[in-house]
């Protein structure tokens, strides 16, 4: 199990704990297409971490099954299964007595890779997470900042080229600036590597930013809705989902798209403030409000006007 991304499919997965009447996860069915990020979100007690941990069998499945690339996780040897899945947790869990390079090399060593291959892989991954190997290879975790630690955690999870990654609130303990930076780094890395990622978070904005798909779970481990961020934002299935998405879900929907993607109205000599095509619709709306204008002229990178976006166009989008 390495290299090519694989689909992860939950098939009526239920988790019951002995002595508790209600299951922690109830008949969860969803599939994460190969190479996509699926964010599991929900309030605490919604079973999102439980659902994730059943993929690498840190928690046993009570009923139902999970398959990776068509193979049931139950049919595999548990240590082999885990070594084939990248695992990142909020507290990172770096081994304090091992250097950065040794931490990253953990799984390749367990898999018995030859030394030169491990060294090359470690350097490549440290480059990938933007930690220059010459500077960081020999450091111990105690010599790193919080953000650097989680970069090492990410590199360590990617070390053996797993097709699948599990990430449990990996950026939850970081300050907002570092978090935003790492979120974008993850997107950059994902563009390159195309892993299938199950990403647990309680932060809906993070889920909207990172997820190709979002699964919203409610208390008792019931799937409330599963879909792309724009599907969820445009058509929440019920009150719970719409409350969870927040009162500003219209604005969140606008933040998912850019002016370039819209059908613009003709110029017709309109005099209005100018906005670049790469502006998000949310920022465009904000610009209209601050400029007191009901329309903006959208320009291409060379400054040539391409068309006009109006308040009416924005307001009609959610339909």
């Amino acid at each position, binding site marked *: 199990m390495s290299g090519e991304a694989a689909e992860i499919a939950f098939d009526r997965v239920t988790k019951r704990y002995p002595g508790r009447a209600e299951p922690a996860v109830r008949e969860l069915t969803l599939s994460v297409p190969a190479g996509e990020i699926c964010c599991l979100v929900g309030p605490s007690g919604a079973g999102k971490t439980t659902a994730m941990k059943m993929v690498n069998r840190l928690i046993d499945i009570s009923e139902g099954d999970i398959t990776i690339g068509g193979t049931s996780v139950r049919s595999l040897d*548990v*240590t082999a299964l*885990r*070594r084939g899945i990248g695992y990142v947790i909020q507290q990172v*869990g*770096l081994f*304090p007595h091992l250097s950065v390079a040794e931490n990253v090399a953990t799984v390749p060593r367990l898999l018995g890779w030859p030394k030169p291959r491990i060294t090359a892989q470690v350097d490549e991954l440290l480059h990938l997470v933007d930690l220059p190997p010459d500077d960081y290879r020999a450091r111990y975790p*105690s010599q790193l900042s919080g953000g650097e630690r989680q970069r090492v955690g990410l590199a360590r999870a990617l070390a053996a080229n797993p097709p699948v990654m*599990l990430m449990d609130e990996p950026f939850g303990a970081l300050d907002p600036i570092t978090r935003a930076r790492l979120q974008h780094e993850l997107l950059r890395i994902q563009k390159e590597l195309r892993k299938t990622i199950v990403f647990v978070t309680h932060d809906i904005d993070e889920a909207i930013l990172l997820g190709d798909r979002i699964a919203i779970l409610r208390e008792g481990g019931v799937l409330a809705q599963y879909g792309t961020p724009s599907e969820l934002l445009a058509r929440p299935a019920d009150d719970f989902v719409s409350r969870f998405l927040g009162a500003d879900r219209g604005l969140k929907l606008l933040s998912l798209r850019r002016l370039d993607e819209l059908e613009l109205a003709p110029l017709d000599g309109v005099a209005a403030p100018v906005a670049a095509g790469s502006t998000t619709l949310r920022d465009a709306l904000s610009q209209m409000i601050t400029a007191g204008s009901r329309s903006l002229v959208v320009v291409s990178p060379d400054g040539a006007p391409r068309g006009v976006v109006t308040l009416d166009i924005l307001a009609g989008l959610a339909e």
Partner: protein
Amino acid sequence: MTGPLAQGEPAEPVIPDFGEGSDCVVENRLFCPDWVADNWSGVLQPALVEHVKLTVIAVAIGFAISLVAALVTHRLRLAEKPFVVFSAIVYTIPSLALFQLLVPVTGLTVTTVEVALVGYTLLILYRNTLEGLRGVPSDVLEAARGMGLTRRQTLWRIELPLAVPAIMAGLRVAVVSTIALATVAALVIPEGLGYPIFLALREAFNTEIIAAGLLAIGLALVADGLLVLAERALTPWARTRRVR
């Protein structure tokens, strides 16, 4: 006083006879370096070597037992209490009483001494080893499990290395206290730095008492220093400071 060797008929000694030697020895002054020099290879050095042996054997066996016990209790919590109670009881028995209890069984032998010395190391070594194993942060253990380390791999590659500082702290206390305690072994066997002290006490011969005592103190300091160096060499990661 005149010279030490009286001519003709030896007078009845009024003070203990310290045999041939310098004025210093004969007069039993506080400390006579010449006696130390004369008796280094015949008395003090052998006693020092025996003392080191007694200590090393006691701590090595005590550590082996404690490590196994700690590893077992790390897995089976139930086993902890009996071992703690046992080692704590042993620890509280006065050493003289313990020798008295053991002599009928094992006789006036090295075994008697070692059994007692080992007994006194158990509590500190066991507690520190177990504490070290338990002190491994839970996120580290979860990461290890999630990455597919087996329990055995987790123990050898993660838990034991991370327990080294606590284990070394226990070893330092155990070694220093065993060096002090091993002087009492002279009550049972004619070995160790306690033996010259034991002999010298009968005659109140100052130099020998002080020389052997200083050697025991010096040995403890040197052993402790060596263990500190060993710990530093074993845990380079524990010394590093945050750079930012």
